[in-house]
């Protein structure tokens, strides 16, 4: 990119590609200290510092002193206003290559990056949608002009556009469990497209809407039954948590098993009750499955969980070797790890659960506020 002497916007999508491409950049985050410490942009070769904009009202020298020569600078705030305010002053002070994040952390939280996971036999494909700012992962399985979307987030237009581009009609939307960290887009997407919305009945006791029961023993077919989606009951993160096996090759683990961690059992207030289920699922039920399955989780917590092109996946057998949550022999110790010293709970997680049950209907702006921050669904998140 040419050296810019004027201030330029950078979209969340452009930033995502810089993060995934492991590009170098200097990020000046001008939000207040507590928001910054709670949640920030990370990149392998990105240096990120925090100087609140309100410390720069009398001039930006304090920030300028910390910007390394010759590096691209991105100024970030919550919504955009303060980052522009600071970035404009940096440009006036002679700093070159200065950008601000368009729409701020809010846009960062909402951006979805589609990544192709692989082809299915009989001509289908499976895609992962990486919500890089928040760590949510959704999936779309496409075959023979039909599509199923799993663990959709609330930015449903992204899925609709993607399906349209691939000439597919969304016929099923599936939630592996009742989510506590983000607002599900599953039901909305089903309403908009005429698709069937699936949810595990054990997580749906209090829901206010009709749904199809996602249960073991039943298969969901798309594209003239060439693609089989088999539900596997796998409680522990929630009592209803259900994994999906797609075409005997991919295991969509929901929030039970991640790449470098495992699901936390406490977000519905039942940590003690569900520890046994979690152990049973991870240490016996999953072990009975083919070890060649490719695990595809509904979240990531750390940048190191992203592979080539942003893809988050691993062979089940590899996870049994490397994932610390799958290698705790002692049951008492396991119980301690998953119930004690857990990371803080996700922002507004109780209101988010209520929303996903249909009990409250917050306006879009409120939904944004509720989802601010990282997902924190794994026991090893911080």
């Amino acid at each position, binding site marked *: 990119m040419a050296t810019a002497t004027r201030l330029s916007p950078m979209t969340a999508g452009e930033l995502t590609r810089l993060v995934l491409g492991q590009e170098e950049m200097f990020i000046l985050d001008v939000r*207040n200290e507590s928001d910054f410490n709670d949640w920030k942009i990370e990149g392998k070769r990105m240096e990120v510092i925090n100087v609140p904009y309100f410390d720069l*009202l009398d001039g930006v020298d304090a920030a300028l002193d910390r910007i390394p020569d010759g590096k691209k600078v991105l100024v970030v705030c919550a*919504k955009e*206003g303060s980052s522009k*305010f600071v970035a404009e002053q940096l440009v006036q002070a002679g700093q070159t290559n200065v950008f601000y994040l368009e729409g701020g952390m809010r846009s960062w939280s909402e951006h979805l990056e589609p990544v192709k996971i692989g082809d299915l036999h009989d001509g289908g494909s499976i895609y992962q949608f990486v919500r890089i700012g928040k760590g949510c992962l959704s999936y779309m399985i496409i075959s023979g002009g039909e599509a199923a979307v799993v663990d959709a987030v609330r930015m449903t237009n992204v899925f609709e556009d993607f399906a349209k581009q691939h000439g597919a009609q969304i016929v099923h939307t599936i939630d592996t469990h009742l989510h506590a960290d983000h607002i599900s887009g599953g039901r909305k997407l089903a309403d908009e497209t005429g698709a069937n919305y699936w949810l595990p009945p054990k997580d749906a006791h209090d829901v206010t809407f009709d749904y199809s029961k996602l249960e073991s023993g039943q298969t969901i077919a798309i594209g003239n039954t060439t693609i089989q989606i088999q539900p596997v009951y796998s409680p522990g993160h929630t009592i209803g948590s259900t994994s999906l096996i797609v075409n005997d090759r991919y295991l969509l683990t929901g929030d039970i098993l991640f790449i470098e961690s495992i699901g936390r059992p406490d977000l519905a207030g039942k940590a003690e009750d569900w520890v046994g289920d979690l152990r049973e699922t991870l240490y016996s039920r999953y072990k009975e499955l083919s070890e060649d399955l490719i695990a595809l989780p509904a979240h990531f917590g750390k940048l190191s969980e992203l592979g080539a092109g942003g893809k988050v996946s691993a062979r089940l057998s590899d996870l049994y070797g490397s994932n610390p949550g799958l290698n705790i022999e002692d049951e008492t110790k396991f119980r301690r790890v998953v119930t004690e010293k857990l990371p803080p709970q996700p922002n507004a997680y109780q209101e988010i659960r209520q929303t996903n049950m249909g009990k409250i209907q917050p306006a879009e702006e409120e939904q944004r*506020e509720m989802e601010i921050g990282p997902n924190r669904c794994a026991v090893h998140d911080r």
Partner: protein
Amino acid sequence: MSTQIQANKTLDCKGLACPMPIVKTKKAMDQMHPGEVIEVQATDKGSLADIQGWAKNTGHQYLGTITEGEVLKHYLRKSSPDETKEEKKYPITVTTDELEQKLKAGDKTTVLDVREPAEYAFQRIPGAKSIPLSELENRLHELNPEDDIHVVCRTGNRSDMACQLLADKGFKNVKNVVSGISGWTGPVDRTH
């Protein structure tokens, strides 16, 4: 309970997005006198954490925030450069612990709080009487010169000045509570 909080200045930042509420607050504060209180009305929810952060970093005193519907009312008190200086002259002092013990024991004493009403509204020692330092001279008749009086402010500086004033006016049993409310660990009352 709802009582009006007094402020020397009210600033309307409703409908403004960040950074404007803080930019305007800073400009307004620059025009104010030390010790004065400003009420900042904002609708941007992010203004709460930001105004607290700004106050902490500038040394101005963040008093509290009241939410009325969509509107957040933030209260801040402008600090003065000499508030941080150690210039205590009034010799008779007690610690916050000593005062707490005394109140716990039920000893009869008047706790006089000389901070601004807005500070008093957000946090005070139960039973304390409020007369801001600036009004003290005109309201001496509300106090008895023979009484045992403990004077308190935020950090012990304004109360020091108040003690000197009271001693000059013939009050006999006046004590300055050093470290003030900021060092108080006992029970508190609040209006909001």
